[in-house]
């Protein structure tokens, strides 16, 4: 309940303040958002399996974000930033899909 409320509060705050993304963070924010989504779906799946732990979730959330941003940063420095961020998106997308498939089995038995 609090988690759903937190998501709602974040969305509303974003809509109200409409902050500008700092120029340096511009390429990393979308990747970070997708990585965080991956962590959230993984946590939801773990919760449904009964093995959820909030400490693990916090660590995986931040490590996902930091590693994704670091990979893109490294790609920028190597001159393959565009390709590497595409790769990160693909990998995270695959993980999100598999997690959502598991969640779907738990929730809808299908």
């Amino acid at each position: 309940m609090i988690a759903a409320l937190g998501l709602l509060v974040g969305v509303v705050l974003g809509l109200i303040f409409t902050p500008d993304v700092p120029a340096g963070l511009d390429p990393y924010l979308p990747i970070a958002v997708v990585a965080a989504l991956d962590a959230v779906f993984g946590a939801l799946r773990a919760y449904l399996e009964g093995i959820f732990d909030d400490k693990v979730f916090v660590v995986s959330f931040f490590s996902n974000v930091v590693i994704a941003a670091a990979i893109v940063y490294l790609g920028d420095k190597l001159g393959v930033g565009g390709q590497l961020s595409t790769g990160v998106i693909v990998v995270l997308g695959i993980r999100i899909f598999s997690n959502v498939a598991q969640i779907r089995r738990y929730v809808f038995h299908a």
Partner: protein
Amino acid sequence: MPDPTPDQTPDPGQARPGSADEAGRQRLREALVRPSRGQVVVGILLAALGFAAITQVRTNNTDNSFAGYREQDLVDVLSGLAVTSQQAQDQINQLEVTRRQLEQNRADQTAALEAAQKQAEELSILAGLAPATGPGIRVTVTEGPRPVDVDSVLDTIEELRSAGAEAMQVNGRVRLVAQSSVESAPGGLRIDGTLLTSPYVLDVIGDPHTLQGALSLVDGPIAQFRDAGATVDVQQEKALDITAVRKPVTPQFAQPQ
């Protein structure tokens, strides 16, 4: 502690019994109904996620298409724009040169047109198509007992021409030009098909002194008229109007070479 995003766990849909699925649902329901302390952290993180996601969506919507470009892409775009701008500048310069040329052409054409119009006016005076005004002399020949000799009239015209006469008319009715013809007719003279009678008034535009001198030669036109019994009066005029004009004639046989 298991990873919240396990990849290698077996497919629970087949491996676990239905009771596990029921337990999962149960937990979800309990989480929604009874918040726990651990949910606070999750809520904070989800708030951060929602905030970031909305910010990104806003940025994506509001910013122009270059926001997502990387440094190298931007450099490429910039150099492309520089090339385009250089081309446009070249085109502007070229067009300006063309415009200057066209303006020059127009000025030239205007000058040429003015010159042509001036020439046309001068030629139309010479051809007898336009009225003319200027200094000159007025020669009045009054017939005596004998009719005026055609040769004397022609001599007069030729002398005036050689003295630089630029426009001539007789009795204010007939303009004398290169094609003019003079013949004797009963009661007077037929000039260009028009019958004229005495006194013959010849208006001539040109230098008055030269014209009068040409007529006053020994054995000149005046002398010939007087020998024939006519009286001749020559007056110098400062401003003489020649109003008679000829109709323009298109040459039928003579073609420009």
